[in-house]
């Protein structure tokens, strides 16, 4: 049975071109980049070139780019640094953040290291900007604002520039979890007021196990993982050499093909949305699907029936790979915290299904999915 993969927000297939770029570093170019002989020098150079390439694409300085083991480590590093090194005593976040953010800020609150406030959401699930400003104006405590650029479950996009300007106005530290947008949208960090952003290569057809943390050059933080002078004393541990090369290559390819790929995927999303509405008049879409939303994610609210309850299971039986929430929470039976927050807790009448696309998907696949859904609902 051929499978249809529509769970690209969870992870994406590695691009064979990226694997090609990684291959020399999985074979003969294996030196430890900290070693001073030729084996080490050539791999050190490769890492620095990767860093420059990533910096150029994001319009940042190479000195602001730090490679990590992934998005989760980057988020943990940023939030911990804001509290421990930058003196933040208060955190503003939203209830729909990724668990890497939510569990870290909750830990900060429980351990008494920071006060925690949640910004309200609009009915589309966006950050209520007026409330955000109210919160920022409300306290003289040094504040960290941590808000994700795009929601991984429903796809809502944050106006990162506008939030940045509010943070500038109130002298707050701003971290944005950009795991779903780096490699999918252009960035202009030199002209964006943001102190930390993070990325994971496997979300844009790069390898798993490697991520990035951007740290604005105007702030200085201490390492979160101690021991060894790697990443300019900022992140200890022998570098994931092939992973870093793969990260840069995947970002280069994503950037090169951005116009074409994003238009193509956008069309797929619209096509599926329209088809769904035509076929099932009583479905709706979670989040601001037709407004400010990721072009890669379509989160559909199917009305709860005895049949739709088993939908995820039945879709899988049909070889259609989707997700109910994020991959990280997909084991739990409870409704995702994002859906709950958007529905103000009244989400028990719907079955949310996240369809997330990549350039490998086709309209024919979507037609197949719609046909299958007809049988299942």
């Amino acid at each position, binding site marked *: 049975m*051929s*499978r*249809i993969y529509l769970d690209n927000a*969870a*992870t994406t*297939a*590695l*691009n*064979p071109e990226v*694997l090609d770029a990684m*291959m020399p570093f999985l*074979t*003969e170019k*294996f*030196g*430890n980049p*900290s*070693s001073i*002989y*030729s084996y*080490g020098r050539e791999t050190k150079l490769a890492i620095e070139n990767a860093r420059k390439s990533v910096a150029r694409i994001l319009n940042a300085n190479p000195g602001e780019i730090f490679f990590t*083991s*992934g*998005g*989760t*480590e980057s988020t*943990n590093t940023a939030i911990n640094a804001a509290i421990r090194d930058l003196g933040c005593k208060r955190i503003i976040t939203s209830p729909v953040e*990724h*668990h*890497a953010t939510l569990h*870290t800020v909750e830990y900060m609150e429980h351990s008494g290291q920071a006060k925690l406030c949640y910004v309200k959401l609009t009915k589309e699930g966006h950050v209520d900007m007026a409330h955000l400003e109210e919160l920022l104006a409300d306290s003289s405590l040094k504040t960290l604002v941590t808000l994700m650029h795009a929601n991984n479950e429903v796809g809502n996009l944050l106006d990162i520039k506008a939030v940045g300007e509010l943070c500038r106005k109130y002298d707050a530290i701003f971290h944005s979890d950009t795991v779903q947008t780096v490699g999918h949208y252009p960035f202009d960090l030199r002209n964006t007021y943001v102190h930390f952003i993070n990325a994971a290569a*496997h979300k844009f057809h790069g*390898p*798993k*196990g*490697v991520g990035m943390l951007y740290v604005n050059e105007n702030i200085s933080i201490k390492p979160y*993982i*101690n*021991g*060894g*002078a*790697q990443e300019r004393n900022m992140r*200890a*541990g*022998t570098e*994931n*050499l*092939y*992973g870093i090369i793969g990260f840069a290559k995947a970002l280069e390819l994503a950037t090169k093909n951005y116009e074409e790929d994003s238009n193509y995927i956008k069309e797929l999303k619209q096509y599926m949305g329209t088809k769904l509405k035509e076929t099932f008049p009583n479905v709706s879409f979670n989040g601001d699907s037709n407004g400010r939303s990721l072009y890669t994610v379509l989160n559909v609210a199917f009305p709860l029936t005895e049949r739709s309850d088993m939908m995820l299971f039945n*879709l*899988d039986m049909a*070889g259609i*790979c989707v*997700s*109910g929430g*994020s*991959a*990280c*929470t*997909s084991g739990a039976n409870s409704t995702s915290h994002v859906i709950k927050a958007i529905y103000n807790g009244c989400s028990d009448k719907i079955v949310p299904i996240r369809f997330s696309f990549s350039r490998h998907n086709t309209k024919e696949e979507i037609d197949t999915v719609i046909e299958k859904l007809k049988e299942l609902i």
Partner: protein
Amino acid sequence: MTLTPESSTFDVTLSIRKNHHLLFNYCMELKLPIYLDNNATTPMDPRVLEAMLPYFVENFGNAASRNHSFGWVAEEAVDYAREQVAKLINADPKEIIFTSGATEADNLAIKGVYEMYASKGNHIITATTEHKAVLDTCKHIEKTGGKVTYLNVKADGLIDLAELEAAITPETILIAIMYGNNEIGVIQPVREISAIARKHGVLFFTDATQAVGKVPVDVQKDGIDLMAFSAHKMYGPKGVGALYVRRKNPRVKVTAQMDGGGHERGMRSGTLNVPGIVGFGKACELCMNEMESEAKRLSAMRDRLESALMELEEAYVNGNREHRLPHTANISFKYVEGEGLMMGFNKDIAVSSGSACTSASLEPSYVLKALGLGDDLAHSSLRFGLGRFTTDEQIDYTINAVRNTVLKLREMSPLWEMYKEGVDIDSIEWAHH
């Protein structure tokens, strides 16, 4: 997306096989430079890469995706690798927490125990010859209010067990002593250390990055409570490691240092590096099968290298020669600068004059200083790290190259001349400039 064997992945796999061949060729014939720094990192075994390849382009699923087969395939691969890793160290698969490497595992063990057992005490005992990942983490702990005792080592690099026991206080929560040293290769008396730890109800953590896969490490027999190790030191990929955390007698807990989706039983969040973990598992399996014969082969080669170089005058082996990793030799050549030596055959032989993490600096190795070596001897040391792809021809070449370089450099050295004339150099008072 539909994946078939006809897709481009297949071509990639073929081209990779060709590349493997290159790597094998490089092992077969004498090709320069010779890599003798396997303590810094190892080349990946082609069999490991082959195991990893299907998990890059084809079986790319997120191991946490529970709703579809891409996720299950990834999860199964991780489970299998976890068994392979656990088997090598005689652990239960549930006791293996995958990390991004040994440094992260060191951080998780020390900070995780420090936070989890805060109500019991705040004192940690370690040694001055530990890896930077342990030492820097301990320094970080001190900054947050913890107490750390840094045990000195004896001239042979081993810790003094009586000193260790005497350092234990009612506040002590953790003993962190490495298994095999990265610079000199000495193997600490792990079983005696764990017996002392047990006796006093203190947890024992060991950084076994250099030892796992090279010598038999058995967490049960060795009485280890927590253990860090990594794949790239045993012919696996970079960017993946593990922390062993004992689950019974006693059940050990650590506070997670990375919060998020609750992966790895809540102890380490973050999407799993599936190909990396698969490679780690395969690397462990290969070590499991080949360690015994490989250790014999390597120690014979190492001993041959060592005795040939020890024929030079004023050459000294650093560290205990008996309790030592089979593939490591650290030798000082008096009156010769290690950096000069390295420059001498830099293009032909890749060795290290300190640990790789600090080798770009010209500070003498803190490990050798801890053995009591003066700056001169510490500066004149070379670390030879043999590995799975080291051949007898490479050792022959190395013996010659090192000997010739040492002799040549000494010929040009006024200090060597004075020594040969019988001047006691250590008694000279040098004028200040």
